[in-house]
């Protein structure tokens, strides 16, 4: 998996450390950080939770990062790729850096398995 400082693993680790140990040094003041898991949350409402779709909209979990990034950025072109109904209107709401973070996020999730979600344990790589 490619290293990316916006990759949610870093945030997840931050959550864990934050809740496990009292950190000696206080974090320095800074502007609000991009968090790919926050960006991705709204995509779940159409593409399914974690990008695993239960319906007619395409699944995006576990797809190659480059493919997702290329497709996402292409939605911003005018006119958008043939067959686009809505992603042009959505993709234009994000910077290219946001779209790359989203591509990394969804490519890092395992594609849907047949087993019900609750029974999938230790599903990460």
């Amino acid at each position, binding site marked *: *998996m490619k290293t990316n400082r916006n990759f*949610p*693993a*870093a*945030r*997840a*680790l*931050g*959550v*864990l*450390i*934050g*809740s*496990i*140990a009292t950190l000696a040094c206080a*974090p320095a003041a*800074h*502007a*609000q*950080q*991009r*968090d790919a*898991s*926050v*960006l991705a*949350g*709204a*995509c*779940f*409402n*159409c*593409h*399914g*939770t*974690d990008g695993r*779709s*239960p*319906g*007619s*909209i395409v699944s995006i979990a576990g797809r190659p990062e480059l493919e997702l990034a290329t497709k996402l950025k292409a939605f911003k072109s005018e006119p958008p790729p043939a067959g686009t*109904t*809505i992603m042009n*209107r*959505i993709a*234009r*709401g*994000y910077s290219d850096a*946001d779209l790359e973070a989203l591509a990394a996020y969804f490519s*890092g*999730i*395992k594609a849907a398995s047949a087993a019900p*979600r*609750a*029974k*999938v*344990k*230790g*599903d*990460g*790589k």
Partner: protein
Amino acid sequence: MSVKLSRRRALGMLGGAASGALAFPSLSFAERRAGRVVVIGGGFGGATAARYLKRRNPLIDVTLIEPAKRFYTCPFTNLHFGGLRSFEQQGHDFADLRRAGIRVVHELATEVDLASRRVRIASGPWFAYDRLVASPGIDFRWGALAGYDEAAAQLAPHAWKAGAQTKLLKQQLEAMPDGGVFVMSIPGNPYRCPPGPYERASMVAHYLKTHKPKSKILLLDAKDAFSKQPLFQDAWAKLYPGLIEWVPLAKDGKVTRVDAKNLEVETEFGQKHKAAVLNVVPPQKAGLIAELSGLTDASGWVPVKADTFESTQQPGIHVVGDATNAAPMPKSGFCANSQAKVAAAAIVASLAGREAPKPTYVNTCYSLIAPDYGISVAGVYTAADGKLVEVPNSGGVSPRQASDDFRKLEARYGEGWYRAITQDTWGTRS
């Protein structure tokens, strides 16, 4: 456990977290520090907040208070009127939220004690919280429209909250004689689901066209313009010519009095309209508990901070969904879900002593005009200088010139959206 978690381990945890099934090591120290969150309301905003709080930090103690054992969504009730879905298909239970480790309490929250940070439920017990989330949806301003109160709604249903009212309106529609007029009174902004009345008119038209072709629909509107208006009107002209008449404010469309017994309404300039079925969408305000808890302002809605949806009036309380004044975001289930996810991330960060991440919100409202004819409006929003703003150049409505295939695809995607968002929110398969 050591703080020096290896990268591999962290990634493993991430994978687990992403599947929502991460078994955390038991850490009593961390557990004590993780915090307690109470969520009022198990609709789109509340159920999403509860799920995503747990997902982001399984150690947080999450209690969800919602009187209904089965939540019926307003989205897609219009398809029920169109004869395309059963009422039961609208229902979602709370079993999956329980499986996720959330304490679900099926009662009404009756009081919020701001000073000692606790919520009381109808049967008496209190639930203490470190952070409170409220997503109580809307309540009606009974009496704001002369003649329209709870008793009147038994004769002239609103069906603007899903449940008995939905069933009542459906029965009335089915019992309506061919040749009758279906009259809808539509309020001024803001109200729950801006395109909802016009989607309802479309679905009722679909039903009437097939079952009662001599009937008519009269829309009496307190506004001069509405969401996706050109798209709706193009489609009505094409699919339902002469069936739907829309009367805007400027043409005396504003209903000022309802006579529910006689199924008659009167407009601003004294015109009377008799209905065979009368559907009144009443003026609205934030859910009552928000008002009782000192969260609303003079507008009747809850002002919130743009980046976290924390109340501007009561620190430590986050309010999401229809109850908020989140303009330019509309009051939709999609928005409620999107706001709840941002609020959950902010709460988890704040309980861990970190700064909230940068927010992004999205809305999409699909409207179905006929079984193969869907349209949509979308928007992407963020916080800038403390205000909610639509990201410039993003969003917008479906193109006015589009092929039949395009409309058909959007009808299909609308159904895909419903499956995805209900599974994301309640964990149910529909």
